[in-house]
């Protein structure tokens, strides 16, 4: 296996390197990728067309919003997949053969620190989500941070404590609702007579110009993404950490 691996690595590496000489220099503003109308359009026109100063957010949630919807679906799929692979609904035989799970005693320092930190983390997460139009951030980033706050609860105390906040069903609901929010914007555009995910038409139902409708819808879909990511991040953690039993974590 080792020699096979070495051979394939050498061949692939040689193949990839052989094309490097053909690439434009690193950082060359005139490279095809940077000078073609695609990236130029995204840089120069995004603000005019969507009113979002953060081009990445605009491209993510609008120009390539369809991709992003499926990105969210990928996360959602991963969550469902892990549940379907790992989750044990029957109660007998918890964590057979795995490392022994200790019952945690509450630790004052860890507990207090986390108590203090978690609200701040969550607040920051909301900021990242909401301010994604103007600064680095967005639904994915904020969602991960938010999800991390729940994971921190589970880590600092135990999984049951985290479950009080986000029981399994609520996790799944959140994840599904997140995607529904995203796709709902698309569907709404469709019902109003435009193509799927063409937010501009939503100005008919929100008081704004078409360009502002895009701006606001993007915030909406980012919130949807954040829902899903938050929920699934926690779900992946809790399943993996409890070996699918959802009883006790690490």
């Amino acid at each position, binding site marked *: 296996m080792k020699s096979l*691996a070495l051979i394939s690595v050498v061949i692939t590496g040689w193949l990839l390197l052989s094309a490097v000489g053909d690439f434009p220099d*690193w950082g060359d503003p005139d490279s095809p990728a940077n000078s073609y109308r695609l990236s130029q359009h995204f840089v120069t026109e995004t*603000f005019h067309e969507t*009113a979002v100063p953060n081009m990445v957010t605009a491209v993510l949630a609008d120009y*390539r919003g369809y991709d992003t919807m499926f990105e969210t679906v990928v996360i959602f799929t991963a969550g469902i997949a*892990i549940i379907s692979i790992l989750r044990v609904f029957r109660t007998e035989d918890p964590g057979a053969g795995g490392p022994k799970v200790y019952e945690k005693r509450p630790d004052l320092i860890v507990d207090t620190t986390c108590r203090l930190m978690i609200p701040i983390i969550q607040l920051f997460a909301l900021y990242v989500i909401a301010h994604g139009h103007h600064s680095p951030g967005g639904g994915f980033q904020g969602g991960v941070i938010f999800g991390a706050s729940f994971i921190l609860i589970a880590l600092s105390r135990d999984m049951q404590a985290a479950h009080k906040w986000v029981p399994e069903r609520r996790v799944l609901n959140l994840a599904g609702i997140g995607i529904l929010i995203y796709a709902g914007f698309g569907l709404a555009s469709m019902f109003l007579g435009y193509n799927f995910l063409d937010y501009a038409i939503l100005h008919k139902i929100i008081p704004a110009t078409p360009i502002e409708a895009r701006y606001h819808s993007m915030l909406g879909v980012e919130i949807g993404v954040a829902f899903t990511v938050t929920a699934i991040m926690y779900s992946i953690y809790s399943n993996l950490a409890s070996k699918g039993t959802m009883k006790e974590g690490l």
Partner: protein
Amino acid sequence: MEFFEVISAKFNYWIYVIIMMIGLYAMIAKNNMVKKLIGMSIFQTAIILFYVSIGVKDGATIPILYHDQVHAGHHHDDHGETAHHESTDDHHASTSGDHETDKYGYPTRHAPDVVIDGNDFANPLVHVLMLTAIVVGVATLGVGLAITQKLHREFGTIEENEIHDLIKSGK
């Protein structure tokens, strides 16, 4: 020195290939399933490095507009919006000269006065793409780990050859 020049001009691309091959080697050669997944993670991260390298522009900053550009834009926007609410017809009459509008009277371009230089900002597209790739990487890793855990639950080991032995011996 010539050689060094060649390398340095495309430094990132060389590095990405090397990182990627480390990952690929681990994916194929390692026997431990978690190590394989780590290799997979390295492999995917290398691709992210590659893509992000494409989008770099000398002398450009992150693809978010400068504050004053946005501010100028918002200024126009606010103005337009107020006018719109107060008296639509007036607004049209007064702005049709310098702002294009569509047939419903909505502006076709937001803040048309703001001038954005294409060379000021890095290519945003690759970042979007890589956001997706990261997400995919996380998802695959998660599923991979879940399957590994299931295998561990069922076979009591995560060494591939041991599992093969167990299957062969009919357990």
